[in-house]
């Protein structure tokens, strides 16, 4: 009954709500968000997290919105200063207990913020190109960077505490190279054009990065470059042997492909002015880099043979005729010094020496490169400083001074000082300065400069309107990855600017971490296995020292895969969904109370659930959902106060507790404390796409929300609030991804040749299948054919399959792969379907269960029933087994089948004897006469004497049923005999409780064990539609189909399921088509158990002469042994269409991932039909649904909208 609505005001908005709603529910329903961590619509309000505190006019203090019921005239404010302050403090408190890494320390350390953990996991999945796509979300130069990056990430890698860091940079290069080596490179999605134009000055890493991301936003980008080619420092500063130019060209192409125009040889201030740029473009980005050499005034600098390092490297790159002398002196200690010295070595130098004024320890160049240079023969002189260069026109001598290290300076490095009188000369006919770079701002004089860099704010804006600056020209010389990272941010700012939005960079998400490498607790990593770091072997020094070939060959596939296994996956599995992180970001909390106050071990004690108590916020949702919804109580709170934690019952390993692996706790957990184990080599996590689907495991028809990333199902969830299962799932649905992953898939069409299944083309396989089936028909007639359809395929697939069987194969032998019962329902009610829905459970006042074990077979139905029982609903269970539902039932009757039949007959006899039939019953009708006939001879009088059960029990139950105003019956069709089902149906009908009229709360809900069992019956995969004994029904169906299809439908009766099974055994069925299932009829399975040896085949001609075609997603032993042709099928995840649940509710499922072998089941069926000579027309699910609607009026009384 609907209660009068109340009106209240929330945040100044007048809204109405149901009187039993809480403030939180009313607000949420009206789109007003109140934060909470402990509230779940499925659970009783708990009030623990204290985040939903709101101000209530007239109340003494803040109240929790989750527990406060609305009332008329209530005035609520959800975001007052006080409530915000309280929430912020609560969040800080929660974070003080929180211990973990939101994202991996590698990603945190990466200046470009690459999702390193994510891309490594994609490589581990065998999808390097998808890894590349992920990398390119943050960095457009992975191939180049993968070769020259100083690897900030690897410095922070947690593997340091186990053995050595993961070779992240090499993996990045591996992914990038995989893409560049592919035929077509990855091109990102480009938004529709914005009509805005951007001029980027400078075609180096920063400029091209900004161009790449701005172009993706739909802006028209023009790049201006002063040099003949793009690449900046990558091209002119990094030698060929480290980064081959051909590769760089290819990588740059992936960027310029998105740009409007590239203008090389265009120098700012000379070929184009700032004014022109500002006129031409809506925004200008200066990305000039820091390519000017810092000149050190020294006597002799004017001599020939004296070089600036970058000029030297640049000229070599430009292939100018550069010559070096016999003795090359390089002054400096950075990467340019190393690059210059190794380049000189590859030219004609006899000796190359690096002179550096501090010691080796202080050298800014990377240790690895210093080592490589040394291997190649570069000599080092430390603690020496230049004094003068001398020579006659050409440099011949370098005068140096000895240095000593003094006190540390501001940078922490020890400051060198001159040792007086220590001058000495060395021979040097080439002297290369590598002592630093700076900005050359010429041409951009309007833009103010400080300390050799453009002035720009956090959003890269220079004081000149519309002019932005990015990369080294703002920061001073850095690395490629830093310049790219900075330029990406610039691109975001410029995009905001172009859209006319405030140019404020969005705050990054809040991230908590376990601490830096020297802070973390080594004990947490004790259990990690040591695995040797995979690193590609460099070319031998003696080989490489005078060659320009790339010295690092990179990873081969196997090594890359092996290396991914070393990743510790530090980042949190829940990072993209974590409510705590989102709220911490939103409320801009601090870490003033620290983090990680308490440490718990992370047990590995469940196949599907990963738990990390360090991330638990003690919201209790897991404990409560397990108890309140599942009735299992596998979780409980342990200890008090700050030491409180959630553990499995009696602190047992979770798997050994009462846990039923339904995953409900995972679905309720707001943080990463409970996560679903991902059945992949590495768990990701990734940002996922969500695709709606329906569980194929049983006829409850739970709505699924499949989380998909890069063509893989990563997690299964369910939307809370849907009217079938309200977000609740059981083991079968919640972890179906594990089953799908573990099953062996059919990856390509297979045809049996010489006793073995061999891979062939689709065409060949379809041809072989068609030919074989037609051959059987030709030789033995259509009756020797049989088509089996799995009750796990969609309505559309089932429909198309049966149509093909009847029209193309000319047989009515169409059956489900498992026997489907329920024909008694058709006999009594006209249709083999439930006459009740789930909503009737709520409306009924008595629920009678016949042979149903909800906890075991239909757990989500079990949740509904248990809740109803706990709310006071009268539940009676009748079963041959004790079930978990018995404890919630008012009464339980244990009856085996024979006794059940007798009991039902007794009840019906009692009803007739005492004239208890409903007044609506037409006693002259045919069915009533049949009923009378059925129980005519039942010895009602003998009940009590010879009867095995006390009459008061049976008639007590009957009276309960008769007295109820809205009694509902739930039967499990798999656990009930045909006669019993008929008696039950008649009982419902004769008492007027059949549910076929417009009355709620009555009827029969018929449960079936597989997801689309109802749907395939509705789709005519039902031998009972073409029965041998009742030709009237057969003719009716045939005429109807024939009329719709305008095609000839065979008039012959269908073999029953049992006859088909027997037929395959006795040889009367000789041709078989099995759709959507790896199973084969029982008789064939038996044969499959033993390998099909030639001798055996001769001994058992019946099965060996069978021609079996299967359209199957999974490879089974039966197929392996017996199938003649196997066509790869699609799983429900790969299919689009509809399932019909036990209520008759037609629910849509959408394709989440592409079929593994490229074809949907519909396409395969249609392909086969075409080969059989009867093309089936368009195969879109929608098209087929429209056709189906003609042949099969969709469920009448309580119909639910079909998918559109």
């Amino acid at each position, binding site marked *: 009954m609907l209660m009068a609505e109340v009106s209240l005001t929330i945040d100044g908005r007048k809204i109405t709500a149901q009187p039993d709603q809480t403030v939180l529910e009313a607000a949420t329903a009206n789109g007003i968000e109140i934060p909470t961590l402990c509230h779940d619509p499925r659970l009783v*309000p*708990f*009030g*623990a*997290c*204290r*985040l939903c*505190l709101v101000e209530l006019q007239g109340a003494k*203090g*803040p109240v*929790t919105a*989750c*527990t*406060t*019921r609305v009332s008329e005239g209530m005035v609520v404010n959800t975001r007052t200063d006080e409530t915000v*302050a*309280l929430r912020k*403090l*609560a969040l800080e*408190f*929660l974070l*003080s*207990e929180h211990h973990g890494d939101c994202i991996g320390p590698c990603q945190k350390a990466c200046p470009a913020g690459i999702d390193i953990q994510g891309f490594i996991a994609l490589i581990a999945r065998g999808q390097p190109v998808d890894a590349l796509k992920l990398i390119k979300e943050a960095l457009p130069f992975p191939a180049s960077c993968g070769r020259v990056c100083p690897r900030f990430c690897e410095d922070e890698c947690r593997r340091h505490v186990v053995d050595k860091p993961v070779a992240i940079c090499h993996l990045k290069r591996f992914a990038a190279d995989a893409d560049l080596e592919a035929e077509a490179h990855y091109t990102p999605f480009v938004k529709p054009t914005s009509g805005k134009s951007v001029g980027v000055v400078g075609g180096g890493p920063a400029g091209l990065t900004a161009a790449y991301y701005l172009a993706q936003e739909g802006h028209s980008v023009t790049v201006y470059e002063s040099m003949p080619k793009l690449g900046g420092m990558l091209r002119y500063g990094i030698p060929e042997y480290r980064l081959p130019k051909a590769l760089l060209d290819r990588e740059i192409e992936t960027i310029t492909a998105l740009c409007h125009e590239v203008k090389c040889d265009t120098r700012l201030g000379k070929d184009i002015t700032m004014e022109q740029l500002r006129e031409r473009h809506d925004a200008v980005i200066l990305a000039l880099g820091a390519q000017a050499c810092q000149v050190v005034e020294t006597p002799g600098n004017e001599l020939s043979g004296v070089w600036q390092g970058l000029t030297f490297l640049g000229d070599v790159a430009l292939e100018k005729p550069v010559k070096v002398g016999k003795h090359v002196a390089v002054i400096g200690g950075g990467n340019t010094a190393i690059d210059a010295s190794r380049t000189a070595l590859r030219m004609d130098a006899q000796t190359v020496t690096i002179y550096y004024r501090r010691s080796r320890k202080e050298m800014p160049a990377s240790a690895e490169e210093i080592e490589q240079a040394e291997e190649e023969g570069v000599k080092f002189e430390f603690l020496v400083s230049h004094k003068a260069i001398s020579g006659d026109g050409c440099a011949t001598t370098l005068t140096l001074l000895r240095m000593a290290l003094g006190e540390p300076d501001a940078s922490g490095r020890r400051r060198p000082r001159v040792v007086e009188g220590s001058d000495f000369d060395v021979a040097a006919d080439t002297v290369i300065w590598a002592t630093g770079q700076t900005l050359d701002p010429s041409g951009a004089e309007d833009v103010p400069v400080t300390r050799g860099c453009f002035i720009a704010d956090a959003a890269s804006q220079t004081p000149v309107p519309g002019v932005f600056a990015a990369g080294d020209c703002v920061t001073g010389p850095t690395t490629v990855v830093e310049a790219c990272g900075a330029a990406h941010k610039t691109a975001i700012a410029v995009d905001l600017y172009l859209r006319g939005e405030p140019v404020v960079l969005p705050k990054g998400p809040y991230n908590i971490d376990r601490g830096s490498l020297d802070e973390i607790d080594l004990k947490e990593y004790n259990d990690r296995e040591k695995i040797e770091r995979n690193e590609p072997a460099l070319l031998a020094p003696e080989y490489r020292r005078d060659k320009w070939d790339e010295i690092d060959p990179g990873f081969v596939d196997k090594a890359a895969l092996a290396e991914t296994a070393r990743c510790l996956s530090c980042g949190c599995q829940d990072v993209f969904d974590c409510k705590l992180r989102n709220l911490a970001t939103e409320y801009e909390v601090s870490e003033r*109370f620290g983090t990680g*106050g308490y440490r718990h071990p992370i047990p590995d004690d469940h196949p599907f659930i990963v738990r990390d108590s360090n991330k638990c*916020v*003690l919201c*209790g949702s897991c404990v409560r959902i397990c108890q309140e919804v599942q009735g299992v109580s596998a979780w*409980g*709170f342990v*200890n*008090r*106060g*700050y*030491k*409180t934690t959630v553990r499995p019952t009696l602190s047992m390993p979770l798997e050994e507790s009462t846990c039923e692996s339904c995953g409900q706790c995972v679905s309720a957990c707001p943080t990463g404390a409970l996560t679903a184990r991902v059945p992949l080599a590495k768990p990701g996590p990734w940002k996922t796409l969500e695709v709606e689907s329906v569980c194929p495991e049983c006829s409850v028809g739970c709505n699924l929300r499949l989380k998909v990333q890069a063509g893989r199902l990563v997690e299964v969830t369910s939307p809370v609030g849907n009217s079938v299962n309200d977000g609740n799932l059981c083991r079968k649905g919640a972890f179906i991804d594990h089953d799908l992953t573990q099953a062996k898939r059919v990856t390509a069409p297979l045809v049996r040749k010489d006793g073995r299944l061999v891979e062939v083309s689709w065409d060949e396989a379809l041809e072989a299948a068609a030919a074989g089936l037609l051959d059987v028909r030709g030789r033995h007639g259509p009756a020797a054919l049989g088509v089996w359809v799995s009750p796990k395929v969609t309505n559309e697939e089932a429909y198309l399959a049966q149509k093909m069987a009847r029209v193309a194969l000319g047989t009515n032998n169409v059956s489900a792969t498992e026997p489907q019962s329920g024909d008694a329902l058709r006999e009594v009610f006209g249709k083999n379907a439930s006459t009740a829905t789930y909503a009737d459970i709520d409306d009924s006042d008595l629920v009678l269960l016949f042979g149903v074990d909800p906890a075991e077979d239909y757990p989500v139905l079990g949740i509904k029933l248990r809740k109803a029982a706990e709310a006071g609903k009268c539940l009676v269970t009748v079963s041959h087994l004790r079930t978990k539902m018995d404890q919630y039932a008012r009464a339980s009757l244990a009856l085996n089948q024979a006794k059940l039949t007798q009991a039902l007959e007794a009840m019906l006899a009692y009803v007739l004897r005492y004239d208890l039939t409903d007044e609506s019953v037409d006693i002259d009708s045919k069915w009533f006469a049949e009923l009378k006939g059925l129980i005519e001879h039942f010895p009602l009088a003998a009940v009590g004497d010879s009867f095995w059960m006390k009459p008061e029990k049976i008639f007590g139950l009957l009276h309960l049923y008769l007295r109820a105003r809205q009694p509902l019956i739930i039967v499990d069709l798999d656990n009930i005999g045909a006669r019993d089902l008929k008696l039950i149906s008649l009982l419902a009908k004769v008492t007027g409780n059949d549910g076929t009229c417009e009355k709620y709360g009555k009827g029969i809900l018929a449960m079936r064990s597989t997801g689309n069992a109802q749907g395939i019956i509705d789709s005519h995969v039902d031998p009972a539609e073409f029965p041998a004994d009742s030709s009237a029904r057969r003719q009716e169906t045939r005429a109807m189909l024939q009329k719709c299809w305008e095609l000839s439908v065979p008039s012959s009766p269908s073999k029953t399921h049992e006859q088909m099974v027997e037929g395959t055994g006795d040889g009367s069925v000789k041709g078989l088509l099995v759709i959507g299932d790896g199973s084969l009829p029982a008789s064939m399975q038996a044969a499959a158990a033993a390998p099909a040896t030639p001798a055996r085949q001769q001994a058992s001609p019946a099965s060996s002469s069978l021609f079996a075609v299967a359209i199957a997603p999974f490879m089974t032993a039966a197929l392996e042994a017996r199938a003649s042709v196997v066509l790869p099928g699609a799983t429900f995840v790969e299919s689009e269409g509809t399932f019909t649940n036990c209520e008759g509710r037609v629910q849509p499922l959408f394709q989440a991932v592409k079929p593994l072998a490229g074809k949907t089941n519909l396409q395969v069926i249609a392909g086969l039909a075409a080969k059989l000579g009867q093309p089936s027309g368009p195969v879109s699910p929608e098209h087929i649904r429209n056709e189906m609607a003609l042949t099969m009026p969709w469920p009448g009384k309580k119909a639910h909208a079909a998918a559109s």
Partner: protein
Amino acid sequence: MANTTIPSLIEHIPTSKKQEQVFVRVGLASCGLAAGARTIYDELVKELHPHNIEVRSTGCIGMCHAEPLVEVVRPGDDTRYIYGPVTPAKVRKIVTEHVLGGKPIAEWLVTSDIAPRPDIIQRQTRIVLANCGTIDAESITDYIAAGGYQAIKKAFKMMPDQVIEEVTKAGLRGRGGAGFRTGLKWSLTRKTQAAKRFIVCNADEGDPGAFMDRSVLEGDPHGVIEGMLIGAYAMGASQGFLYVRAEYPLAVKRVRKAVMMAEEYGFLGNNILGSGFDCHLSIREGAGAFVCGEETALMQSIEGKRGMPTPRPPFPSEKGLWGYPTSINNVETFANVPYILREGWEKFASLGTQTSKGTKVFALAGNVVRGGLVEVPMGTTIKEIIFDIGGGIPDGRSLKAIQTGGPSGGCIPASMADLPVDYESLTNAGAIMGSGGLLVMDDSTCMVDVAKFFLGFTVEESCGKCTFCRVGTREMYKILDRITKGEGREEDIPLLEDIALKVKKASLCGLGQTAPNPVLTTLRYFKDEYEVHVREKRCPAKKCTALISYHVIPEACKGCGLCARQCPTGAISGELRKPHVINQETCIRCGLCTNACKFSAIKVE
């Protein structure tokens, strides 16, 4: 037991027993037992058995500081001769000289002169404790003889609403802490439509230092049962639970026995006293979680769940135990009820103040000469309780502060000792009545340390459910700990206050909402002490070990070496007869040397 026999059985119990013969009474409550009263009792039995003189046991007499107590009762003599502390050696002399000889031994009596009644007793008004220390708690007949179970008989003659009216008019308020009006609570519970109702006695006395509920249960269990029975009748509850903490084994034992006896005598069960009213009482033992004194947590515990508070509303009077309306009252509250019914609401309401009627029992403890249980009319001043009843502050020290209400309460400075104890005055002062703990602190007390002590208790006892209580108390504790260690930062004091106010405001239940009280009141009245700790890294009371050091005064030191022998870490050295020196590196500031020194030659800085 057939109903018919019960009234007749009661009729045979005399309502007042005329005492013909001399007898001896020994306080056998937990306080006495802990001091060795059992041995004294056995000794007395041994000595007096041959003389055919009875030795009786009774509950807490109310002078816990002087236990074991022995009272000699002579017929016709109104003087209470109470000996204490009695040692086994004193027993024979008391027996021979006083019990047999009729000559009191003046110097062993609790008060020095033979006063008619000692101050500690005389200045009290005993309603709740009336039977404690006078009757045998394990004897229902003793209770009936003292006028027990008359009130319920009277109640049965009234309509339930009239009973509630009586309690409402008396102005009785909950003695468990919050002071909710008992009559209102009962009528709310009665008003809620339901198939059944529950009544619960909260005997989960959790405040450290409070023991009035235990004493009442040990000394007068039938008084509580009768109170519950009246409440059950008034609100129509057919089942009740006594939630007693398992750490009170004697109380559990006596209540259990009392319930059994009451059932046997027809005061519990079906058709009580032929009234047609049924009521069953069960005992639930709590596992000793402080939070289970909070009524919603207590109900969870009774239901067999983890003792965690649930949000209110719904209030227990609407949805309590298993979803049925439930009224939860404290032991002391129930103990007042028979008096109100028996004597009439006017007599009860004549005691106390305008808003707080009747008496209140306090557990007087700390730096006070005579600690123990005292029952005084509401409105008595703190000063009267401490000085007139408690005998003032020992060792010549002065009063610094009073903590009322245990860890949920607050510290009131000595300057406010004139404050009358009633609900409103204490709340206005930032403290609470609580269950009645009254801790006296002298001038050697460090108030920061006190706040830390009480908070340390709530940190441990927080149930862990809500964020503010679980983490907030701990963060406050961390700050206090910092301050007492001399690591406090200037911003710590405002931060502490900020957290305390927010924890108070936003916690789920009473535990969290009151946990900051010790911090807030000490900040309110003794902020300077915090500031000295933070700014000068000094503890003015010289209590915080990290902030003090022990030194030998060379002029006063005689070089006896006593301190060096006492020092557990060997930090004191020196030649005999020459001034000793304390090594500050190894000194752990335990203070043993100060106690050992006979010449006051060790100073604390």
